[in-house]
Structure formats: structure tokens, C-alpha cells
């Protein structure tokens, strides 16, 4: 291994990390706020019962939420028990892990506006498409 190349790459990565540290800390601090102030009950109250609107709401709420994936399963399970459509719940749990509104400033800083916008737009559209396709396929398999 080229030791000189390693040292150079190490310090380059370290420099990049330190440069982005204030933004990273900001995102983490926002994550903490979100986890404490936005409760699962508050998220559940945003759904109306209309399948189409709820699927859209599910994608947006999931994208704006932060936390471990299993939290989205717990909320999703509760929503299903409350009679929420499977489309909405699928979109919700999918966008929970594929969209990151809180992380947007960090993603934008590292990858630039065009990449960040395109990726998140694609993830948003595909959360809807995959939710519809999955639930439709589920109907066929039953």
C-alpha cells in the first residue's frame, strides 16, 4: 500500500469532514428536536381516511420523519389497525427511509443542488409508485 497516498487521502477526508462538521451538527440537533417534539400520535393525526390523499400524506410525513425504521413499522401497524389504507402505510414506511427532509441541507452541501433535488424528487415519486405496485401485487397474490 502507498503510505503517502493513504496519509494524503486520510487528511483530505478529515479536512472535508471538519469543514462539514457545523452542518452535520445542525442536522443532528434538528433530528433530536424532531424526535422529541414530533410524536407518533401527532403524525397519525395527519391522516384523513381518503386513500389517495393519505398515500400522498404518508409519503410527505414519512419523508419529514426521522428515527429508526422500526418506529415507522410501529406507527404503520397502528395506522393499519385504525383502518388506514395499505397504500398510505406503505408509502409512509418507504419514504421514512428513502427521503430525508431534515438531512437535505447536508446532502445539498455534499452533493450539490441538482443531485439532491433530482434524487429526492425521484425518491418521492418512487415511494408513491412502489406503494401502489406493492399493494396491487399483494391483491393479486391473495
Amino acid at each position: 500500500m502507498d503510505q503517502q497516498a493513504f496519509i494524503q487521502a486520510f487528511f483530505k477526508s478529515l479536512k472535508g469532514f471538519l469543514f462539514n462538521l457545523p452542518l452535520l451538527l445542525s442536522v443532528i440537533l434538528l433530528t433530536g428536536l424532531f424526535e422529541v417534539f414530533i410524536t407518533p400520535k401527532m403524525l397519525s393525526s395527519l391522516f384523513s381516511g381518503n386513500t389517495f390523499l393519505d398515500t400522498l400524506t404518508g409519503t410527505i410525513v414519512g419523508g419529514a420523519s426521522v428515527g429508526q425504521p422500526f418506529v415507522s413499522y410501529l406507527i404503520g401497524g397502528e395506522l393499519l389497525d385504525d383502518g388506514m389504507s395499505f397504500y398510505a402505510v406503505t408509502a409512509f414506511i418507504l419514504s421514512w427511509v428513502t427521503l430525508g427532509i431534515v438531512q437535505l441541507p447536508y446532502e445539498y452541501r455534499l452533493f450539490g443542488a441538482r443531485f439532491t433535488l433530482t434524487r429526492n424528487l425521484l425518491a418521492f415519486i418512487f415511494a408513491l409508485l412502489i406503494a401502489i405496485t406493492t399493494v396491487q401485487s399483494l391483491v393479486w397474490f391473495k
Partner: protein
Amino acid sequence: MKKASRKNRKPKIGGKILFPVVIIIYLLLYNSAPEKTLEALNKSLSIITHLLPIFVAVIVIMGLITALLQVKNFAGLLGKQSGIKGWSIGIIGGILSHGSSLIWYQMLADLREHDVRDSLIVTFLYTRAIKLPWLPLMISYFGFTFTVLLTVYIIFGAIIQGIIMDKISSGKQYD
């Protein structure tokens, strides 16, 4: 004309603006709900303590990868000519990756500087939606068929998004 590198075209707005804004939000919230705000701060600190060693590991790993692989090898593995091999690395890497995406953003941004395709980064980030350790829990909540279907569609979706990203990026490689 010489193309501007991705590194030199990074956005100027960053933590210098957001960090003071977040501190002000904390101070304002502390006035109205001190206990909850402290709880949020504690949560954030525990995230930082959890992530910090991983970030150090990522920096070391990036140093090792860069030292072991020459730039041309990066391009061969994950660049424009990487083909199925590149897609496979993007998909499998995304599925196997764990932890906060914040860690992976840093590593992926470094790889992007070495001409790793945007499409593979998009694919990697989307297949991260498949959380292997949480699959049993997903099955228990939503059923086996649902979990399998969702997993398969996530992989297909990730590839399609990568292809779309490729089309969008072609000719406009840099932000």
C-alpha cells in the same frame, strides 16, 4: 475549456448559516419547553457520541480505499464503464450498509470525487431502504408476501432511478 471539478462547485451555503439558526431555535424552545428541549439536546448528543467513532472509521477507510485503489480503478469499478459490476456493487452495498445515512453521505461524496457514477450513488441510497435486521419485524407487522414484494420493488425502483439519474446526468456531470 477545462471542466470545473465537483469539489470546486460545492454550494457555499452550509453550517455557518444553519448552525446559528438551530441554536436560536433551541434557545427559543428552551424558553417555552425547557425539559423537552434538554431531552432533544440529550438525544442529539447521544447521536453524536454514537456517530463520531463511525465517522473516524469512515475517514480511515476512505484513506485506505484511496491508497489501495488508484483513481482509474475506481472508475473501472464504479465509473461510467462499470456495467453490471457497478450496479451490483451499488445494490448490494446499499442493502448491506447500516447506520445513519449521514455517515454514508460523507463516504459517497468522497467516492463521487473519484468519478463514481451518480446513478450508482442514487441506487445505493435507495436500496438502503431494505433493512435486513428489521425484516423479521416487518414480516411480523405486514406479512411475508408484503415484505418480499416491497423488497423486490425497492431493488427495481433503485435501478430505474439510477438509470433516470444517468440520463439526467449525461452531458451535465457536475452540479
